């Protein structure tokens, strides 16, 4: 006991301890789950490519994606994968256009596993699938071209998910955990690894407040409900809830310091989300409903400031000095 205490005193207190917990307890279970869910989605599409048959597996895959979508560093960011998995927000209507032109031409690329990855990101991934599975305009029957297209997308998704999981396990985990050691060109000090995870945490929170909620909110005078993420599939609010749960998990694994306030702020934001009876933020069309959705946005912003005040301050971290400056 005394020896342990002495060792503890000898080892300098660093925030690095949290990085291993994040990798083992948050990232790797998340990437494995996404790989499994997309594999199951691919199996489901192979067995029966109709929308009704695939929807449950698509929803499971989307749930799994929300567990890791905030990890915008390393394998998920490499090769443009994040957007190839979920092309959102689609501000210029590229998804229906890209799908429409593939379908109109019955482009044989849908039957070519090797080259489907070269298709526009707008026609790949979970968001393109949402159109095919939920948009009346894209309804199809078994045996039509869309069947091949759906299978090509699920196959491509599963491939990317396996790559992400493998690269995290076999390579990028070590890159994070050996930050500051000789030969590590990505993280030149241990603090840089902390910074990368901290930035992912804050950026993930911002994304929920500014994009997932901010886009349908629009302005009080001009709400934009059809800008909500995956509203066709009826899961806009669910996305926020699951993403917040994942970010809460990341926070708990990452922070070695006291996170009482951050924990309370997460619990508060999640309880507001649970009580919000507005699964696709359609309520923003009415003033009362708009204000309710805005309250959720504000509670997430409170989580952000708690994270900055409690974790950022304790570790001497701040989100991007230059990336946040903008000039």
């Amino acid at each position, binding site marked *: 006991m005394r020896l342990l205490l002495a060792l503890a005193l000898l080892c300098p207190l660093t925030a690095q301890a949290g990085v291993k917990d994040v990798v083992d307890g948050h990232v790797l279970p998340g990437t494995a789950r996404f790989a499994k869910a997309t594999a199951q989605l691919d199996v489901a599409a192979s067995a029966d490519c109709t929308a009704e048959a695939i929807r449950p597996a698509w929803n499971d895959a989307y749930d799994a994606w929300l567990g890791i979508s905030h990890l915008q560093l390393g394998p998920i960011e490499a*090769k443009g994968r994040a957007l190839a998995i979920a092309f959102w927000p689609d501000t210029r209507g590229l998804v229906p256009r890209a799908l429409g032109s593939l379908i109109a031409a019955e482009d044989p690329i849908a039957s070519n596993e090797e080259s489907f990855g070269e298709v526009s990101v707008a026609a790949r991934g979970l968001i393109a699938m949402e159109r095919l599975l939920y948009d009346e305009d894209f309804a199809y029957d078994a045996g039509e071209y869309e069947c091949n297209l759906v299978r090509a997308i699920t196959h491509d998704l599963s491939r990317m998910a396996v790559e992400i999981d493998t690269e995290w396990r076999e390579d990028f985990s070590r890159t994070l955990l050996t930050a500051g050691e000789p030969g590590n060109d990505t993280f030149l000090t241990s603090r840089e690894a902390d910074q990368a995870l901290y930035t992912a945490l804050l950026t993930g929170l911002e994304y929920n407040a500014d994009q997932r909620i901010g886009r349908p909110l629009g302005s009080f005078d001009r709400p934009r409900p059809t800008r909500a993420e995956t509203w066709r599939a009826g899961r806009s609010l669910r996305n926020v809830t699951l993403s917040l749960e994942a970010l809460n998990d990341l926070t708990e694994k990452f922070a070695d310091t006291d996170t009482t306030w951050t924990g309370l702020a997460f619990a508060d934001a999640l309880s507001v989300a649970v009580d919000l009876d507005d699964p696709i933020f359609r309520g923003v069309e009415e003033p009362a409903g708009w204000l309710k959705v805005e309250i959720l946005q504000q509670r997430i912003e409170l989580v952000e400031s708690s994270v900055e005040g409690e974790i950022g301050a304790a570790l001497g971290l701040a989100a991007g000095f230059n*990336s946040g400056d903008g000039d």
Partner: protein
Amino acid sequence: MTTRRGFLASLAAAATLPRASWADMGAPAFLGVARVASGAYSLYGLDAEGSDLFAIPLPARGHAAAAHPTAPEAVVFARRPGRFALVLDCATGGVTHRLDAPPGRHFYGHGAFIAEGQILCTTENHIDSGEGRIGLWSRAEGWRRIGEFATGGIGPHDLKRLDGDVLVVANGGIRTHPDHGRDKLNLETMRPSLAYVDPDGALLDQVELPSALHQNSIRHLAVGRSGTVAFAMQWQGAPTDAIPLLGIHRRGTTPVLGKAPPEELRAMKGYAGSIAIDAGGRIAITSPRGGRVQTFGADGAFLDAYERADVCGVASHGAGFVISDGLGGLSFLLEAPVALRRAADRAWDNHLVPLV
């Protein structure tokens, strides 16, 4: 026989005649501004290996610095919408002058010297009209304001000197008003441009991009050896749009846009923060939001991408580039970014200013 009077006179002459030069400061290769651990800001002179030659404390966060071509002086601008700029004597570390924007004007954060270093040109906002202005300041006359002229656009940000003291100005196109901080007031109608202005204020040439790119704010400039102007842009649409952020222009021709695969374009998150051209004509642009540096050939063909978190500053360095980041790193771009130096207690700000 040396008289006391004569001796004093020779001392005085020695103090004024051989003017101080950058060589007296150890011939710094770059100037950079950083936030230090205490939260304060300093201007650093760095040698080619990235080591400090001098450090001068600043009263607040700055944007860019303009280095005098010969004398060891730097002008550091307050952040946009800044009302003042400081002239620093890098030999003494002292602030020798403070430039205050005239009433109704504010600085945008960049400046350039013309007339062999005797006149400083600053990009400014004529606040009431929102029109861009170049302010002229005479170094020889104690940094007196000696005039101003229009830039032919809104929101002039960076400017650079070309041969013949022609100025090339990046009219970013975005109207701001100090009462609204950095709020962008005209995104629907913005029209960025690249303007060439002579030292008398005549607009020699003005170039715009196709209207589909009117929301691509032209912000930062680099000038190549043969007078090629490379410009870095900031897209005001969605960061998922695959939009080129690099343009290349020579007067009398149509601008060429950088050509990169869509996933590379998207990886920059619609934002290029700095730009440089190396001795071989290669161009580098940085994106702190994407944590990425991209290099292009002189013809705009994509060459390489490098990952570096919170990277922003970039300067040419011989046949290559040095980049600086908000995590305190200065790196040389080889196959990958190779660290010249880590200063983890420092956050390098937007720009790295090369001294030639």
